[in-house]
């Protein structure tokens, strides 16, 4: 039995540390959950105790309820639970997101949760962490996924908004409330007024309350005068596509912002006006550089292109196996849609 099998176990409820008696991002209720970030497929209901980063705490409380039992700590500080050293390291995915590092008797496991290696204007940038076992996501684990720089994206978004304004159209950007919305705010900041949907607005308030500074936005409420919105910028969660609220926007041009928009077929599927490949996940080169920087002797590949990415890593001489989890875009989309739909008006 290898050391890593003693430190972590893959169970039906999630990734478990028997020595520490806690789970990492479990998908079923457990006694003690260490959470990488606030997205609904990683931070779920019903855990008796939560541990997360300081920056995630307000987000979890906002989403899971103020009554949850939750502790937090800053990035790069360690605590010990039942002899296992635990620390959080920036994952560059969304505000508060972390890789979780576990160390026990000199053996180190890093669980990435979700991560993005390219820096953006708002998220604490990703930091590589050396380890023996590296558990990595693979959402965009195909070489067709390579993201533009933040500056190039900024230019694309601004020029789209400008064209829309010339044509008297209101720019609507669709992206998840947590992560994509704040990223878009940072990309679009400095020009015109940015209106955000209530689910984003409420989350922003929670984030701001923990001392993080966000770009200035206004609440997009149903009682706003149509003329006020004309030619402005609106950020809304994807669940609003096709909703009555969106239909009330004067002459809208709608853009979906997601890594999947890299492919033409995906851009065309939803019948929107534009698709921008703005992703919170590592691209192909990001995944490979992260795996290499970890110097791990064993890699586990979770949600996304597990089969392809682990096969390729093995060809590079890096021992990698697939790991089936309940994380991923589809689980996230479903959970986020439910949350956003619950936030009406």
């Amino acid at each position, binding site marked *: 039995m290898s050391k890593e099998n003693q430190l972590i176990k893959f169970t039906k409820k999630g990734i478990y540390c028997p020595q520490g008696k806690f789970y990492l991002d479990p998908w079923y209720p457990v006694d003690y959950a260490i959470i990488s970030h606030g997205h609904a497929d990683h931070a779920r209901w019903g855990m008796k105790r939560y541990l997360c980063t300081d920056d995630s705490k307000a987000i979890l409380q906002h989403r899971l309820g103020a009554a949850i039992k939750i502790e937090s700590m800053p990035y790069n500080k360690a605590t010990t639970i039942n002899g296992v050293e635990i620390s959080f390291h920036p994952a560059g995915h969304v505000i508060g997101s972390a890789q979780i590092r576990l160390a026990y008797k000199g053996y180190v496991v890093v669980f990435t949760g979700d991560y993005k290696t390219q820096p953006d204007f708002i998220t604490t940038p990703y930091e590589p962490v050396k380890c023996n076992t590296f558990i990595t996501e693979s959402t965009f684990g195909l070489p067709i996924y390579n993201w533009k720089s933040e500056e190039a994206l900024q230019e694309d978004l601004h020029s789209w908004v400008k064209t829309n304004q010339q044509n008297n159209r209101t720019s609507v950007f669709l992206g998840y409330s947590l992560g994509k919305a704040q990223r878009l705010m940072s990309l679009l900041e400095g020009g015109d007024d940015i209106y955000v949907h209530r689910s984003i607005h409420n989350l922003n308030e929670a984030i701001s309350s923990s001392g993080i500074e966000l770009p200035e936005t206004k609440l997009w409420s149903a009682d706003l005068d149509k003329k006020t919105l004309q030619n402005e910028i609106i950020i809304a969660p994807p669940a609003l596509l096709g909703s009555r609220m969106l239909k009330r926007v004067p002459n809208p041009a709608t853009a979906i912002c997601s890594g999947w928009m890299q492919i033409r077929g995906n851009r*065309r599927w939803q019948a929107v006006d534009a698709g921008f490949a703005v992703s919170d996940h590592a691209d192909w080169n990001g995944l490979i550089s992260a795996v290499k920087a970890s110097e791990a002797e064993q890699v586990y590949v979770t949600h996304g292109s597990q089969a392809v990415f682990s096969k390729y890593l093995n060809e590079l001489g890096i021992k990698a196996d697939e790991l089936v989890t309940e994380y991923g875009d589809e689980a996230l989309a479903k959970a986020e849609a439910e949350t956003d739909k619950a936030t009406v008006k």
Partner: protein
Amino acid sequence: MKLFSDLISAIEITNKTNAKIEALVNYFKIAPDKDKLWLIALFTGKRPSRPVKTTLMREWCMEITKLPEWLFLESYSAVGDLGETMALLLPSPSHKLDLSLHEWMTELKALKPKTDDEKKAFVLEAWSGLDQQERLIFNKLIGGSFRIGVSKKTLVNALARLTNIDANQLMHSIIGNWDVESITFEELIHGNHINYDNSKPYPFCLAYALEKELPDLGEPKDWIVEQKWDGIRGQIVKRNNEIYIWSRGEELVTQQFPELVEAMQNFKDDFVIDGEILALKDNDVLLFNDLQKRLNRKNVTKKLLEDVPIGFYAYDILEYNGDDIRETAFDKRRKRLESLFNAVALPEHIKLSFLVDFTEWETLHEIRNNSRAINSEGLMLKQKKSPYHTGRKKGDWWKWKVDPLTIDAVMIYAQKGSGRRSSKYTDYTFAVKKDDALVTVAKAYSGLTDKEITEISQWVNKNAIEKFGPVRTVKPELVFEIAFEGIALSNRHKSGVALRFPRIARWRKDKPVEEIDTIEAVKALILSC
């Protein structure tokens, strides 16, 4: 190429025809003359032959990216388009090339006779000087189609909006004989190179589905009944020794059916007739699936001409020796059509549509139910005194189709679609029970909503049995009702049956896989129809 690249981006993102037309009109307003001509050439099948083989381009792309072939193929199956896959895989450009569409096309034409090494140098230089979207377009200009939903008709509608010239005349102009080097845009759209008087079609008269009981139509003697043949409606225009064939979508399809053009030479008179273009072999109407092999081909090979010969069943005559007779009553027009056909010796594959002999409404039920046996879709009921209406008008013409046959089958394979559908699993293979095993009976890819397709795609992602390659074998679990127009015994199919025009009628979420049909039950349908 920025103008053209922006146009393609604008067109591909929308599925609204009007937005596509608007983008085209804007392009035509500002693009240089030669670029406009190339755009029309590219979207009407007048592209020059491919100067560089796809296999070579693939090889070069793998060489540059240093990716193993399997990973290249995985990427391809995720993207669903080779030109796009290569555009996405190649590294960021190192410099910027700025050529117009016309300049690129001229270069590509000149590339054709060159050596492979020279071609490689050219392609690699282009790849490293274009951004992702331009690179994709460059790959498409070499070969491949854009698949962005711009039909000839859309293009023509854009030109018509731009110029106020009649759309059908524009259709003739762009289909006609011209090449980019020896015509200007103005000359092309004004049709200087064609004689539209010779090709001008009439709008088709269309029927509604029957929505009342037969006796409510009045006296049987006031009606003419024909089979509703399942081919494509066509209008054949013969004027001044020139022959044109228009499809119902108002596209000129003359070149696709040389055997019809040849047969029409037998007539001495001028006319415009309406009828059905069908695949006909030994006097039998073949399946629509067979006819499809003949549609939208740039070249009709000799083998294809032999395998799927085309025939024409004439329904109506709209113009005779220059006279528009559409206002004449249908029974009189039919007489005119008959004497036209009886006056000359015609080859077997050109026929009058035969009339159903009946005196009581009652007898039509049985004839309609038997229509499937002769590969007809049902019956057409036409009021004897009816004029040839413009477009769809209620009351004078009715179509009375047979109800589709249905079976319940289980999905066993799923494959991604193409174009807009390349991101989702949209093409499915279905099976029914054969003893303890399953046997494939049909492939179908239409009939579901986008929402259902998304749901099924997610299910396929979770339930695929193998993980590599474009086709996913899935757990036999999802049950669908498959509707089809006909069924025949077949040696080519493992199941022993061939279904005609199968499509998904609905997703039977309520049905467990144990309750799907057996192959015996499917075969029993052959006897019943």
